[in-house]
């Protein structure tokens, strides 16, 4: 009898469940558009707060300075990316493993997380891939991942940290790089005068810098140097309005072919990732070949070859003032 009653109740419950009005199924969430710009400007300020697993960041910081990542244990990331300077070294072309000269100028590690692509030729679509590739680049660090991993494994501290942070993977190319990236993602330089001005802080940006920014936009620099990093988010040809390589006075080397080395397409010859201009005053020398020593000169050359104009001196001064206002607070 009890069974029959239970079955009847169950049947009634099923019927109610089937016939119950469903009402409105909540609509799919609509992605909220990120705001792109402050004061309507095509540049966004750098994030003030970056989040991340502090332990992983600490591990990444240690790895960033770890010479065992290189083939002869002489170089670390920090060898070329001087964090006390502009996030790069002050050489035109850095020295890689075994004293080789790397054919390209070292870009800054600061704010690199805001770049759409990494490397001058933009061949890495993420910091992680960039890190993995750089360690084993024979010109740069000359490391071999299995060897590197073995070395790190011999260190009980690393073993403990990796076991705690990556219990499933342990030490491998991805986890080492991931930790380094976690650290690199904290390397942002907020609160530059320009950023403070963008956020609405009246008087944060000196008048000449404001004038420089205006000219920067009027002259067309802004077409490529825009976004949070004022660059780093597109690829452009060097020498659009002039023969840069012909007038450089040095023979064209493979590294000068830029994007062509990645795609092999003729139209990509001499195309490079547009470098970001944050902290540009601290990252001399300039250009992919490090051939330009001063910011003034770099501004002049850019105007000449990219815009086809010869900058008037006040303009150049104003623009440099503007560029200097992009120096942010260095990470501790």
């Amino acid at each position, binding site marked *: *009898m009890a069974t029959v009653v239970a079955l009847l109740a169950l*049947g009634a419950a099923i*019927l109610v469940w089937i016939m119950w009005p469903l009402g409105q199924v909540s609509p*799919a*969430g609509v992605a909220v558009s990120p705001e792109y710009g402050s004061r309507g400007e095509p540049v*966004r300020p750098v994030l003030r707060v970056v989040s991340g697993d502090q332990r992983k960041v600490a591990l990444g910081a240690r790895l960033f300075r770890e010479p065992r990542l290189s083939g002869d244990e002489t170089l670390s990331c920090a060898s070329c990316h001087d964090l006390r300077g502009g996030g790069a070294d002050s050489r035109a072309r850095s020295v890689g493993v075994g004293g080789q000269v790397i054919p390209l100028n070292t870009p800054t590690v600061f704010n690199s997380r805001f770049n759409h692509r990494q490397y001058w030729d933009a061949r890495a679509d993420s910091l992680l891939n960039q890190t993995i590739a750089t360690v084993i680049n024979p010109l740069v660090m000359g490391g071999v991942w299995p060897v590197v991993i073995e070395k790190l494994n011999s260190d009980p501290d690393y073993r403990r940290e990796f076991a705690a942070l990556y219990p499933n993977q342990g030490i491998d190319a991805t986890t080492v790089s991931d930790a380094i990236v976690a650290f690199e993602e904290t390397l942002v330089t907020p609160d530059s005068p320009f950023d403070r001005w963008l956020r609405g802080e009246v008087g944060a940006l000196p008048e000449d810098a404001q004038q420089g920014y205006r000219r920067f936009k009027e002259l*067309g620099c802004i*077409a490529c140097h825009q976004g949070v990093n004022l660059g780093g988010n597109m*690829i452009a040809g060097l020498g659009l309005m002039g023969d840069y390589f012909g007038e450089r006075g040095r023979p064209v080397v493979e590294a000068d072919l830029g994007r062509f080395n990645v795609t092999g397409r003729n139209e990509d010859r001499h195309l490079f990732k547009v470098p970001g201009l944050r902290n540009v005053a601290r990252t001399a020398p300039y250009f992919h070949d490090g051939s330009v020593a001063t910011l003034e000169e770099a501004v002049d050359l850019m105007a000449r070859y990219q815009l086809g104009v010869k900058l008037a001196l006040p303009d150049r001064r104003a623009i440099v003032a503007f560029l200097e206002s992009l120096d942010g607070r260095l990470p501790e």
Partner: protein
Amino acid sequence: MTILPAQRSGISYTVVVIVVLAITALVAVLLNGIPSSRAQRRAAIIHFDELRSAEDRLAEIVFRLRHGDMVNYDPLNHAYDSVRAHHRGDRHDRLPGLHMESLAGAERIYWNNVVEREAQLERFKYLNAVLRTSLNYFRSETREQLHHIGTATTGADREALISVSDAIWRYVHADDATATKDDMEAILSRLSAWAKSQSDGSGKAYSRLLAHGELIMRTKPELDEVTARLAGAATRYFFDQYYLAYRSFLDSEAEYAERTRLALAVLTVFLLTGFALLAARQLRIGRRLEQQTTFVKWLTDHLGAGVLATDATGNIGFANPAAAHLLGFEDDQLAGRPLPELLSGRGDENALLDTPRSAAVQGIEYTGEAWLHTHDGTPLPVELTLAPLHYNDGGRVTVAVFIDIRGRIETQRQLMTLAYYDGLTGLPNRTLFFDRLNGAINRAVRHASSLAVMIVDLDNFKQVNDSYGHVSGDQLLTIVAQRLRERMRGSDTVCRLGGDEFAILLEDASNPVDISNIAQEVVDALSNTFALAEGEVHTGCSIGITLFPQDGTGCEDLLKNADVALYRAKDAGRGNYQFFTADMARAVVDNHDMERGLRLALETNEGIAVYFQPKISLESGLVTGFEALARWRAGDGSMVSPTRFIPVTEKSGLIGEFAERILDEACRSCVAWQGRFPGVGVAFNLSAVQFSDVRLPKSVERILANTGLAPELLELEITESLLLKHSDQVNQTLHALRHLGCTLAIDDFGTGYSSLIFLKRFAVNVLKIDKSFVEGLGAKALDGTDRALVAAMLAMARSLNLDVVAEGVEEASQATALRELSRGTSLTVQGYLYSPPLPIEKILDGLPERLAPLPVVSFP
């Protein structure tokens, strides 16, 4: 305890419904694929919403950048990455419906397009930057030049420069590039002309404008193409195809869900209805079942018979209170025991022959008596019925019903005892004795051995019975039985054949000496004093013995012959035993012949004659009467004594007819001799057997009437022992005879318990003094005892005024003695001294009125 065993149900309707539903669902799934879950569909909807949103944003950003509404490429990169992010990872895999080829194809085409767009994206950024920069330059440079021209050149030039600037702007932003291309070429050629015509500063400016214009001309078509490929309607088509394919899939899913929902609702209603009906039915069935169960329980609880039922395992699953009670168990102790364990045959340990048990094991019917094992181990006799019940699902139970038949068996035993044993002594009775004797004979034949049969008859039992009463007689018999039993071996059988007659069967007895010893022992044992409640009595016994095989081959023979031997022992003076002998056999044969002769004589009326012995007055010598005496001449011509043939007639039942014939003849003769001897009557002896016939008075009366004899002339003689019976029947007969007017005489007076009361009560007319007393008178007298007795009898008769007849007077000395003793009184004498018995002819022809004593005594 469960009344009914659990029945294995067949395939229920519920199971059928479930199976049908399952098959239907399986077919539906095979036809439609596994329906997507709500979460999957929601994920898909979200995916498409987000993807479309990202595509929209990408397109919006592309066009805003293209038209200079926006400069920042970060959102563009973000929008593109966002589109691509929808292709990455497991979210894609979770989308339902991708197994469908149409959908998968559309999806593949779309995502290939998305990947291809990355190159377009980079190209777009670069070209757009170039174009925007050049356009920007153009605007600022023309403004510069206007400022310059404003001071140097004409208004026409100014107009031209403004129109060039406007044309460039229109060209850059035109959707259809070809429409303005010609204008653009004209402008460029005008700029070229200006550059050549103007000197130094202005010329250079125009050259730079021309360079930028050419750059714009070069860039714009490609940028337009790239823009279209990045965010144009053609590109959007791929997404739309993908989205439409997916939406039709989701629509079909929704329709499927709709149908499923309807089907489930209908099905549920059906099921609910079915369940409700089933429940109602179940309820009804349950109620009826409960009633039936209660009824069955009530029935079995109040049934006197034990009822057991096995469950499906063959163990007892049900026992009613009567069963538990009869078997000595508590109500719940029987459950779980194997039924065959309780059953046994009639003590037969062989399982194969153990019918009830094997019937229970095999599950076949059985009806009959059986023994059940009770709790304390004593077997219980029952009338058992085993009824196997086969359920239609193959299950089998056995119902056992049994009735306690202890009472019946006890009754049977008692009946056996009654039928085969003597109630008084507890000894086997005649029937059982015959059984045993038969068995013994069979055994003796088989083993070529012999056996003996003794018939023991108490000598004075009748007297004891008469004197002390039946209770004492019974007590005597009990003691006799006890003594006999004590002296017999276990293999011997002692039985009471009836009355005071016992029989003893001795098996394996061949030595006559041993048998004699045993017989003598019995005789001795029974001659000892018996202490009865009424006092001590003495009795003895006579024993007749027959032996098998020499004295007879069957029970009847053996017993009959033992009887013969017994009579011989009685005749031999009692208190002894006799073996049956060939002589006895011969005597038996003689008796047999005699009986046949008598029957023949009665039929043919030949050979039987009546003789009359005169009775004479001692004083006068006058004939005063005649005593009728039967004579029989056998077939061989020899005369046979009445003492021999009368017992034969008595035994064979001929006595009635025979006596009637004699009496009739006597009466006729008496009538006949009235001419010569007027007033002289005739005396007739009534035997005890005759007297016991209630028809006697009628018979006498009829004969008197037929013959015309006056009743007072008929004198009926009866023996004294007859009177001892004191029975009503004897009294009535005597009274009837007296009433007829006959004279009564006591025959053989003095030999029995001479009863004076009788003489007084029945007004006896005549006393006949037995001849044994007469023998003691006269010459052969040993002492004076008989003389004194005769004197006393005469004195008593005189005082009672009775006539006296002295029988058997054969010598003159006896007559003399009698004359002396009867002085003064009349005495009648009878005997050979005066006349032998005479035929009627001699009486009628010249018998003198007076008879003197004959000189010589001669016996016929």
